[in-house]
Every structure is written in C-alpha cells, then in structure tokens.
C-alpha cells in the first residue's frame, strides 16, 4: 500500500510535467490545445530519433529538441492559433484537433506502428533504485522526473514573477488590449508563451520516452492525463497542478491494486468525481480557477 502510494507520487511527477504546458497555454491564450498530447509524442520521437542517429544520450538530444519544439510553438501560434483565436470559441478546438490528427498520422507514416522507448539509451538509470526502510523502492528515474517537474514549475513561477518577459506574459494574459497600450506586442508575447509551453512539452515527451513506451497514437492518452491532472488539482496554484498530478498517479496505482485493469479506470473516476463535486458544489463551473492557477505565486 505504502509502496503503491510512493510509486503513484513518482508517476505524478511525469503527469505534472506533461500538464504544465497545457495549463500554461490555457492561462495565457485561453486555448485548450487538443494537439498537446500529440506534440508530446512528437517530441518523444524527435528525442528518440536524435538519440539513435547521433548515438548520444537522450539528455543531450533533449538539448536539441527543446529549441526545435519551442520554434514549432512559435510557428504554430503565428500561423494557426492567432487566426483561430480571432474566429470564435469553437475554432481553436477544431483546428488543434486537426493538428493532432496530422501529427499522429504523420508520425505513423514516418516511424510506423512500432512502440519505442528511450529506456535502453539511458543505461542503468531506467531500472536503478534505492530501497527505503520498509522495503519501499524508489526508482532513480522516477525521482529524477519528479525533481525535474518541481524545478520546472518553480522555474516557471520565478520566470513569470521576475523576468521582464514573464511579467509581459502575465500582463498580456490578463488584458491583451491594455498590454498593447503599454508597448507590449501581444502577438509576439503569445508566440513566446506558445514557445515556452512547447519547450516544456519537449521535456515531458523525453521523460515519457525514458520511463515508458510510446507509439504514434499515444498522444490522446497524454492529453487526457494532462487535462485530468489540471482539473483534479485545480486549487488555485501551479502547486495545485503538481498535487493533482500526484493524486492522479496515486489513484491509478491504487486502482491497479483492486483490479489489473483498474489503473486507468481509477484515474478517470477520480477525475469525474472531482468534476462532479466542483460543478455541483459551486452551482456552476468555469475554468476561472485554472486562469488563477499559473498566475498565482507561491506564498
């Protein structure tokens, strides 16, 4: 039981990583990016491809993939998202869903249906673990993932708080018209925010590849995990996302104890329970808490 909880917490570290970019993008642009999961898989494939081709460590490959994904984010915002933001509330959903289909099938076309993993490329990191008193084992990779998630979230918060660009992003997210009047080019800020979001997606993709397997059609599942983590943890801070991600991971691991197939079911059920409580307790439901989430600072 304790072991399952510990493993769930570690798994939550990955979910926090993948949820980070989704909530960031929603917070700034009010876009729920349905291609989010597919982009994470795209990043995983890029890391895998570079690792294989150049025979380097995935961590080195990640150094190349983060800027590539960030550039992709910039282009995506400038070409598609800017336009879809201006054409009604349904358009961003439809256009990002279209992008997801293109990415998924494009990956299938290029890389085929095989499942891949980066685990063979990171040596003993993929299985080495420490054993705590009481027989609980803590995987080094899991701990690293959780650590990276925490560092990323703290880093993003510090960036938003203290960096000039971070402040411009917050200002634009709150009121793009007024930000323009302060000399801020809101289109560029949006593009920068999309670049940052996809940079985090690249990291999430790499860690997905190291801790598990992936194939071209794994994107939908990643989107769902990310969304569930954000919804479950919606307590009003980026730490909420981390907590939500951990709750999701723990619920899944406990669910797996009940039934071998209970892993995913437990996560989905937790998601719906949290959603139902929120909808019926508040008498209404909106994503305002999400808006506040990434913007608020640690006390």
């Amino acid at each position, binding site marked *: 039981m304790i072991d399952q909880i510990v493993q769930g917490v570690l798994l939550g570290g990955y979910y926090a990583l993948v949820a980070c970019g989704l909530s960031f993008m929603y917070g700034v642009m009010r876009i729920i990016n349905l291609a989010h999961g597919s982009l994470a898989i795209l990043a995983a494939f890029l890391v895998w491809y570079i690792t294989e081709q150049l025979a380097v460590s995935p961590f080195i490959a990640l150094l190349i993939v983060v800027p590539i994904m960030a550039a992709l984010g910039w282009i995506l915002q400038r070409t598609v998202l800017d336009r879809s933001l201006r054409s009604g509330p*349904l358009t961003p959903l*439809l256009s990002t869903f279209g992008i997801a289909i293109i990415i998924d*099938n494009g990956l299938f076309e290029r890389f085929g249906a095989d499942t891949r993993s980066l685990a063979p490329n990171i040596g003993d990191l993929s299985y080495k673990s420490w054993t705590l008193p009481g027989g609980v084992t803590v995987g080094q990779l899991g701990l690293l993932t959780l650590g990276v998630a925490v560092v990323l979230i703290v880093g993003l918060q510090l960036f938003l708080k203290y960096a000039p660009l971070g402040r411009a992003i917050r200002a634009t997210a709150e009121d793009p018209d007024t930000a323009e009047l302060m000399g801020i080019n809101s289109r560029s800020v949006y593009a920068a925010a999309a670049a940052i979001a996809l940079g985090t997606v690249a990291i999430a993709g790499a860690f997905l590849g190291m801790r598990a397997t992936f194939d071209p059609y794994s994107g939908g599942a990643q989107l769902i995990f990310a969304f569930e983590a954000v919804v479950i943890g919606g307590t009003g801070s980026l730490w909420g996302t981390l907590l939500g991600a951990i709750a999701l991971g723990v619920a899944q691991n406990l669910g797996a104890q009940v039934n071998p197939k209970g892993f*995913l079911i437990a996560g*989905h059920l937790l998601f719906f329970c949290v959603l139902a409580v929120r909808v019926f307790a508040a008498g209404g439901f909106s994503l305002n808490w999400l808006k506040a989430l990434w913007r608020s600072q640690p006390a």
Partner: protein
Amino acid sequence: MTDAVWVRRWSSVSIITIVGLAGIIAILAFGPLFLGSYWTSRLTTLFIYIILAVMWNALAGYAGLVSVGQQAFFGLGAYVVIRLSDAGMPVYPAIALAPVIIAVLALVLSPLALRLRGGEFAIGMWVFAELAHLLVNLDSLIQGETGRSLIALSAFAPDVRRANNYWFALGAMTIFLALVFVLLRSRMGASVQAIRDNEEAAASVGVRVMATKRTIFVLAAAGCAAAGALTLSTLITFQPKTFFSVQWTAYMIFMTLVGGLGTFEGPIIGAIVFFIVESLFGSSGVWYLIALGASALVFSLWIPRGIWGTITARSGIQLMPIGYRLLFRK
C-alpha cells in the same frame, strides 16, 4: 393591417426538395434488389456516415458543444447490441433498442456534461469515452480487446444480412434526419438556432437554453449509438479498440466542417464528400488520414461555413422548409 399578413413555411423549392428527398429514399428502399452486394454494403456505410455527421452537427453546429467523445455512444451502442443479443434478444430488435438505452444513459449524464464549457466539454467527453471503453473491456463477455462477434448474425445468409443491414441503416438515417427536421421545424427549432447565434440573447428572450441543449445532447447520443449498432451489424465483430476509437469523432468533425457547420444540408453533403474521398483514397492509408486532418484545419480556419454554408451565403437559397416567410396581401 395584420390580417393582410400571413406566414408561409413551404416554398416551391422546399416542396421539390422534400419530395425529391422522399423520392430518393423511396428508390433507395429498393436498393438491395438492384444494387448488387458491393454497392449495397457501400451505401449502408454512407447511411451510417450521414447519421454520424448529422448528429455531430446537431451538437456542435446548433448547441455549440464540440465533443471529442461521441465514440463513447457509438461504441456503447454496439456493446448494448452484443449484450442484448447474448441475453437472447433477436439481433435486429436489439439494434433498434440500443439507441433508446443509450439515450437514457445520455440523459443521466447530461446534468454533468452540459455544465462543462468549451474545451472542458470536449475533453471531458473524451475521458468519458475512454472510461466507457475500459469498463466495457472489464465485461467478461467481451474478453478485453479480443472482442466478441455478434454470433446471432450468422443465422442469416450473407445476402439477407446485407439487405437487412441496408434497410436498417436507411431506415435509421431516415428516422434521424426526420427527427432533426421535425425538431428544427418545431418551435424548439427556432430556439435552437437562436442559441446557435447568441446564447445569452436567447436566454434574455425566454429560451430554455439548458433544456434545449439537453434534447440535442440526448438525440446526438442516440444517433451515434444507432450508427455504432449498425456498424456492428456490418462488421459482425465487436472489437472495443475499433469501436471506441477517437477516429470516429475525427470523421464526424471532418464531414461536418467540410459540409457546413450549423446547416441542415451541410453534414449530408459532408458525409457524401467523405464517402467519395474514402472510396477513392481510403486505401492510401495514413496520407489519407493526414489529408483529413489538414482539411479539418483548413476548413475551420479559412472556410468556416463549409461547402453548403458558402453556397447559401452566396446564393441565398434555402432548400429546407425550416424557416418562416411573411407574405403580404397586395
């Protein structure tokens, strides 16, 4: 003065359209007698596509609800048929009953689902579809991803089965088109279009927004369930992975966007376009799917009215008698 004014709903164009449609359906009803086995089964597929497109359009185009999880109802519709058949019910009555059962399920789900907004609703429905998929896999009858065949169908000779499927699909398509048509023509139809144009303004003139959306949500669920049940009758084997695939929703989105979101005729045209594209390029594999995604992207950004919406905007023609015209005595 007002005695000299009255309301007309039918125009000569719309009468011709409806008579024409009825005529086409009447001719199609004899399809299996002259079409041959290939076209009988191909047209069955087209009828199923039309149901899917019309239902997704009702949801997104009229109620403003973009769902990425309609495959939930599609898959559950098929699953219910397997279950009913296993319980001893004859196959075709089971196919007819499945949409009704799923409609009840959707009604139960609606209080939660309809309070979600925009992307929340879209992904929330997707999670629901995933959950439904996982729970169906737990059923020992289905044997996980292995799935189960609708064995009772083997009692029919292939030709008979093909013809039955055809008639059932044609019948279901006719019923759902008629339901949408009647809904749009009713006073609720005016409300539905008002919600589509401006939800808040609709509420301010007394439209029951929630109740109207619920009706559409339930109807769309029933339609997708019927399509799922019918697809099962053509494929025979129920494989959860196939039936709960998000691909079905991708098809629905493509058909609706290409044909024209928020019009009656658009999704029908979109389904026919999709059917033709699939017939021509379906065998070319993933490039075909990439092209579908790209078209969804292009239509949503640059041609948001779709084919039919663009045509009506240019020409002002109105085929279906769902509107109202005021006539004045000279």
